[in-house]
């Protein structure tokens, strides 16, 4: 069994493919490409593909990762090329990496994600800055979180690592969000967008155009993107 990390993007209409359907789509592409994917043992064997971090419906991404196990060693370039020739519109493999040593699954390594969000505001950059500062200076921001057993209040502030205005033009603002992501804490960028609407009394508005730009894990107390981590950088 040989493990590979693949990095792929989901753009345009492909952002409307749900997490489960993305796995199904990748699996079928692997089969169309005739790559020797490995299957789990047991009564109900399933293909060994796992996506590092589920992406909410409607969010674009240039940095999706998945662990795939194959029955043998393959050329990384061959994986990229053969999959790209059989993927539907909007999904593209950017890189593949053979992981030879025993390392934790990507899913359990993910700690954070970077999102780019485009929102509107007609009142000038100060208002956007002030709103962001209002959020960042709070120590607790409680939000209702839906869980399997019901609803509970959760402090989401620790999951907001940073919010930065990257650029603006006219009334359009491009914000960069650094948020916790993964099993140890996860915050949807949509929640932060709602917070921005709320804290600005609706002066920040507009349908958010959200894109995930990077997924991080922690190495020596620093955030490092998944691909670099596995490459040993």
């Amino acid at each position: 069994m040989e493990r590979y990390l693949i990095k792929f993007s989901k753009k345009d209409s492909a952002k409307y493919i749900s997490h489960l359907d993305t796995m199904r789509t990748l699996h079928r592409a692997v089969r169309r490409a005739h790559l020797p994917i490995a299957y789990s043992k047991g009564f109900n064997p399933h293909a060994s593909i796992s996506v590092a971090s589920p992406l909410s419906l409607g969010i674009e991404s240039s940095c999706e990762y998945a662990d795939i196990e194959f029955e043998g060693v393959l050329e990384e370039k061959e994986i990229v090329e053969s999959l790209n020739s059989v993927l539907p519109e909007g999904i593209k493999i950017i890189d593949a990496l053979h992981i030879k040593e025993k390392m934790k699954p990507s899913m359990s390594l993910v700690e954070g994600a970077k999102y780019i969000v485009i929102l509107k505001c007609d009142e000038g950059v100060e208002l956007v800055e002030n709103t962001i500062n209002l959020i960042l200076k709070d120590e607790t921001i409680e939000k209702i979180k839906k869980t399997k057993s019901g609803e509970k209040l959760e402090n989401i502030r620790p999951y907001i690592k940073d919010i930065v205005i990257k650029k603006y033009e006219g009334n359009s603002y491009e914000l960069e969000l650094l948020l916790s992501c993964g099993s140890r804490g996860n915050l949807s960028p949509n929640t932060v967008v709602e917070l921005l609407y709320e804290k600005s009394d609706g002066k920040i508005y507009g349908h958010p155009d959200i894109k995930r730009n990077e997924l991080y894990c922690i190495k020596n107390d620093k955030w490092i993107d998944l691909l670099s981590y596995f490459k040993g950088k």
Partner: protein
Amino acid sequence: MIYIGDEILSRVTKPARYTGGEFNQVKKDLKDVKVRFAMCFPDVYEVGMSHLGIKILYHKINEREDCYCERAFAPWTDMEELMRKNNIPLFSLETKTPLKEFNFVGFTLQYEMSYTNIINMLDLSNIPFLTKDRKREDPFVIFGGSCAYNPEPLSDIADFFVLGEAEEVIDEVLDIYIKWKQSKKNREEFLLEAASIEGVYVPSFYDIEYNDDGTIKRRIALKENIPDVIRKRYIKDLNESYFPEKIIVPLTEIVHDRIMLETFRGCTRGCRFCQAGMIYRPVREKKTDKLMELAEKLLKSTGYEEISLTSLSICDYSDIKNLVHSLVEKYEKDRVSLSLPSLRIDSFSVDLINEIQKVRKTGLTFAPEAGTQRMRDIINKGVTEEDLIKSVKSAFESGWSTIKLYFMIGLPFETLEDVEGIAALGQKVVDTYFSIPKDKRNKGLNVTLSTSSFVPKPFTPFQWESQDTMKSLSEKQKYLKEKIKSRYITYNWHETPISFLEAVFSRGDRKLTKVLIKAWEKGCKFDGWQELFKFESWMEAFSECNVDPYFYALRKRELDEILPWDFIDIGVSKEYLKKELKKAKEGQLTKDCRIACTGCGITQFSKEGNCFNGALFNKIQ
């Protein structure tokens, strides 16, 4: 091209229903095509994309360089609301073109309860509902599929119908369209030419005269040189006919998310309630070699892990053992699983399914259709209680413990004893399970009995019979529920008002078009979806249009009455249907026509005089 913004798509359930962009979707340059065809299914994406017929036609039309076929489905209510609010017309998935800009808008009619969705889709497209209101630049609205065999309820809406297997007809339609488009001729001139194609029915060229009692007096042809009788079209040799080697792989899970490998068309059993068994005659098989070749290509082009062998009764495929063995042998290592829907009730079938479901025994479904031998003989099901008990015994011994049994209630000549027989049969299945030693059976017995309510269908021996009343059907359901004692049995039933409405439309005439539009105006759509079905609105629509629904659903027809669909020739003669009805009353069986020809008329119709094209006679089980 329409732009459907994120502010819309991000607010609807399952947005992948509306995005297109699937693998194997066909993209063409619009500059290169002369005809644009919108293939429509009047239900949601997941349902429509599961239908084999439109997959075949979509790819078949797209094989032509001069034509481009795209798809459109009924938007779910959340999407429809946003489309209406934002003035977005119904669009094709491939190029997001409004349907109104197409040359043809073709709908497949698979069930009557989808008809209001057709009206809704035309409305969302700003296409006039009625053929008489359409202008030269409007698309031709055409219909096909099994419900088109009684076209009359949609006759004012359709520009024309294609009767029979459309793969056989569509090229001829497209060819004359291209010629017409280059000419300066009007719409009617195109329809006149279309009417000369065998299998094409242009309803606006005929008028109907009624008797005082509402039955049909006669049909009047309004044009010269148009046929009095419309003959269905069918493919003579399925091995030579078109079948796609690539199919679209959806991005969201659909109802039948697998390769559908069509093994044969037609059925030899002759069940008297079954329309498919009559209209798809003659039986024609694809050869195993051909199917193996198609399976290989389809697996490669889709990446699917499952193949379903489709037909009306899969174990009647003459070379089924060889086909199943060959597929299992070749694809076991690739983890391709096989499914066999429509299992026959005998040990042959159980042995066969046992071989392909070695590990996962997901549950077996059989359709005895009726609870007593008397009733099964009336409908010519040709299955005995012994067959069923033997089959389930063998299934239990092989490790299955979930069994589903399908029945109908409200069949002609039914008594309460026959209804009770369903419960008794279910109990016998339970007893059979417990008669097997504990160590030879699996745990967790679950027997599901499902009843649907009988709907008389055109072109069946029961086409003259009345449907049971809603009250009686509900009482029978209640009665059956009381008769079921075992806690291992679950009972499911269909809501009777939906079956009633199905019966109205399945044997309806032209007077129903206005009711359909009225019901749509009252908000009826997705009538096949229990949660959206509005029976009261329907009944209001009937009353406001002064149309009596009971006239269609409950009235027993005289054998000499002119039926709305009598002008269609499916190849099976009316005399044969009458003979079968008489035998039903007497409880007499008609043998499977593979054993001996039963003289249904199809051999005279086909002129070649042969059935079972492609079958291997020495292998018939």
